[in-house]
């Protein structure tokens, strides 16, 4: 079927490519401490990209039985499309990656329900006043890519997500703690996720306060991605090409503290963004972004790399309904040597930031951020003193990443970002 559509498209274009996603997922959903819903999804869609008279055309559809409107829409699109600065890739050897887990396919809904139930019971046993909600989800997707230059590749990937939130509403004191794990592989996360929530809950039972001004701060793994948003935009080849990246002209120069290493790694075993090829069929790779604080690479898809006179870094990300665009895959900040407890011990007066609200607002590109502390703790004389709230912290993520005092010794994946906790010299606190 895909071959027929490709042939139909190729009849009036120099090059053509079909990208198809077929996925199914099952999810058990808990609300107000009880099992509430069992959901499934069956998605299928196809994207057609062509190069016609040197220009890019694109269209997408969920209806594979009706290829004619799709081919016509792609052809109409190419009349106005951007000039193509690339050729579609031909067949290439791909490295084998670990992005599929057999045991997930046979995992029963009953077991997913049991594990969700178990985590909630563990939490309620110690903290009966909490209201828990959560999701346990498994998904399987098949991605196929086919083009007129001979590339034909299909692969499957799986994912398993276990996420839980605990909420407590007291007059003048709302508390929400969110924890979760996600991976290609199945694992019973119920106890570890429940224990992390309980640990946070215990720490919030006491209140702390902190005076406005500049104080040292630790961002937990969960909070670090807030500070990486600007860097992820800054290294994007498209942002560079538009000349609005603050990292323009900084290749080979120090951009963050000298002991920081960052990679974009689509080969990382069993991570959420692991795949044998990117959305254009370019074999996946590990791209150094920052080595010892020095900027090494930007990331590119085919068109952007063509415009910039370089090569794709296998970073063409897409769904079936959109053209590829450069994006990070698994974004890895290499861990350091300092355990979290040591960082805490080092601080006389400061805070630990775990959850914020207001992330992504404001001038992210330039690194500016200003967020309210949703879940954060006061440190006093080397000890965690209790929860601080009703506080706004502000800073510039590039400035902060240049003032790192230590990287934590243990990393965690938060979505597709893997990072240790990070200890920074200071952050501005408004009361």
């Amino acid at each position, binding site marked *: 079927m895909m071959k027929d559509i490709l042939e139909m498209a190729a009849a009036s274009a120099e090059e053509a490519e079909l990208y198809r996603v077929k996925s199914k997922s099952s999810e058990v959903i808990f*609300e107000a401490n*009880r*099992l*509430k*819903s*069992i*959901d*499934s*999804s*069956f*998605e*299928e*869609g196809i994207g057609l990209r062509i190069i016609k008279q040197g220009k890019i055309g*694109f*269209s*997408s559809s*969920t*209806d594979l039985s*009706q290829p004619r*409107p799709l081919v016509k*829409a*792609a052809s*109409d699109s190419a009349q*106005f*499309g*951007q000039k193509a600065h690339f050729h579609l890739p031909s067949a290439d050897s791909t490295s084998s990656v670990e992005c599929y887990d057999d045991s997930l396919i046979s995992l029963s*809904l*009953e077991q997913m329900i049991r594990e969700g139930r178990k985590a909630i019971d563990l939490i309620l046993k110690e903290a009966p*006043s909490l*209201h828990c909600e959560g999701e346990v989800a498994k998904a399987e997707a098949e991605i196929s890519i086919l083009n007129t230059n001979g590339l034909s590749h299909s692969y499957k990937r799986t994912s398993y997500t276990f996420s839980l939130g605990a*909420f407590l*509403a*007291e007059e003048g*004191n*709302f508390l*929400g703690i969110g924890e979760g794990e996600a991976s290609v592989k199945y694992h019973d996360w119920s106890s570890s996720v429940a224990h992390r929530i309980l640990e946070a809950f215990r720490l919030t039972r006491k209140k702390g306060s902190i005076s406005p001004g500049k104080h040292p701060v630790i961002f937990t793994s969960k909070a670090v991605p807030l500070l990486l948003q600007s860097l992820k935009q800054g290294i994007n080849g498209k942002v560079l090409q*538009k*000349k*609005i990246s603050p990292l323009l002209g900084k290749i080979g120069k120090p951009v963050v503290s000298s002991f920081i290493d960052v990679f974009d790694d689509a080969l990382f075993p069993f991570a959420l963004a692991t795949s044998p090829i990117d959305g254009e069929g370019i074999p996946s790779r590990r791209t150094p972004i920052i080595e010892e604080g020095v900027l090494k690479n930007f990331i590119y898809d085919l068109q952007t790399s063509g415009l910039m006179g370089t090569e794709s870094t296998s970073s063409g990300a897409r769904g079936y*309904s*959109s*053209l590829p665009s450069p994006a990070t895959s698994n974004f890895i900040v290499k861990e350091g040597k300092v355990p979290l407890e040591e960082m805490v011990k080092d601080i006389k007066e400061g805070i630990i930031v775990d959850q914020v*609200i*207001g992330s992504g*607002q*404001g*001038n992210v*590109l330039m690194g*500016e951020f*200003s*967020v*309210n502390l*949703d879940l954060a703790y006061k440190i006093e004389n080397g000890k965690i003193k209790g929860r601080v709230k*009703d506080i*706004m*912290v*502000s*800073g510039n993520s590039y400035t902060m990443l240049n003032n790192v005092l230590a990287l934590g010794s243990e990393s965690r994946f938060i979505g597709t970002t893997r990072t240790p906790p990070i200890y920074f010299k200071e952050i*501005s606190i408004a*009361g």
Partner: protein
Amino acid sequence: MKSFLSSCLKRVKADYLEIRYEEVKVVGIHYVGKELEAIGESYEKGGGIRAKSRGGWSFVSFNDLSKLKDYLELATKGAHLIKGEEIKLASLPARNEVISVEVELDPADVSLQEKYLLCNRYNKILLSGKEIQTSALRYADIHTTKYFINSEGTYIEQERIDTVLGMRAIARRGDNIQSAHMGIGGVGGYGLVKEKAEQAEETVKRAQDLLDAEPAKGGKYTIIVDPELSGVFAHEAFGHLSEADFLYEDKRLQKIMALGRVFGPPGLNIIDEPRIKGEGGYYLYDDEGVPSQKTYLIKEGRLSGRLHSRETSAKMGEEITGNARAISYDYPPIVRMSNTYVAAGDKSFEEMIEEVGEGVYVKGFQGGQTNLEMFTFAPEEGYLIKKGRIDKRIRDLNLTGNIFNTLASIKAIGNDLVLFTGPGGCGKGGQSPLPVSTGGPHLEIRDVVVGGK
């Protein structure tokens, strides 16, 4: 479609069952800088089934309508796996309605060529400023036909056309990069986005002017918000708190959010009103087939109502409001806002500025978020107010406050209500963006914390 859906529905047994099916055609144009990143038409068809057993739900979404029978079976089986306290739905008379769209200029009657030329012209304006580095422009017209059928005999077919345009200008001076944006459009035809060259020019000017602004100093200020931010305020700083799904199973929260509680001054009214033609949050029936209605969330400063789905309404014994919405067929309906605004008061903007004396005037919207106790929102630009006059321009502000205190700190309400819609929208429970409109008059609010260095 009706007879096919109803014949499939008849064969299945469940306490309650509904099928939603959607056919969507989108024409999109996307510029980033000089480059036309995407242009053309795409097609999407899909459905979602919700089945309820006595004590649980199951939701199944799909693209392939030919397998509907299998999916219906899966949904009823899923729901039956859940045993628990009985879930009740607010009762509703069965309805049969076919609502077709009426727009003045259907985007389907405008050629791709013409849309391309319009966007190209706007984009050229966006790029025309001396210090403009790049631009971003997104145009979309979306034709949606929604089919809804349930086991209680209701069938509703709704057609809708959305036309939206988002424009952004990005200015650069050395290391200083600033951006300004403008969102236009809503439920309606091509006329919504025509003749907007002036708005493009104004966006360019704002981006360039921001280059001269100084970063804000953190601290507590008396602020005046413009109508655009006033709407975000109604949405973030209060609206989400009035969505019943976050408290209908939590007795403690219900006590905190008791109807009649005083939240703000007597002149304060916050309203959710889906049936305002042309606005992003316009709809006649929600995604449970419930007719939409106007709801006062705050009336004269007191909590006076909240937004409901059939389930939350039944559980809390409150009137059904028709606020169960899904961003598309592949999500179940959840409690959402529509067009939410602060009603106009009696002060003129000039009077407000003069009376404040010292403070900050904030305009435009870059984003907002809430955890249902605290909220943040980021204006696009700000000005210091000194001696009752608008003074220096400032930037990089993010405002925050406690929802429970901040409404009470509203000291003056302007007489100049404006509603805003555009591309983008609201996000909740993984469903984003949902088209909504927000708006209000100028507001004066005391003791707002402004983040800054």
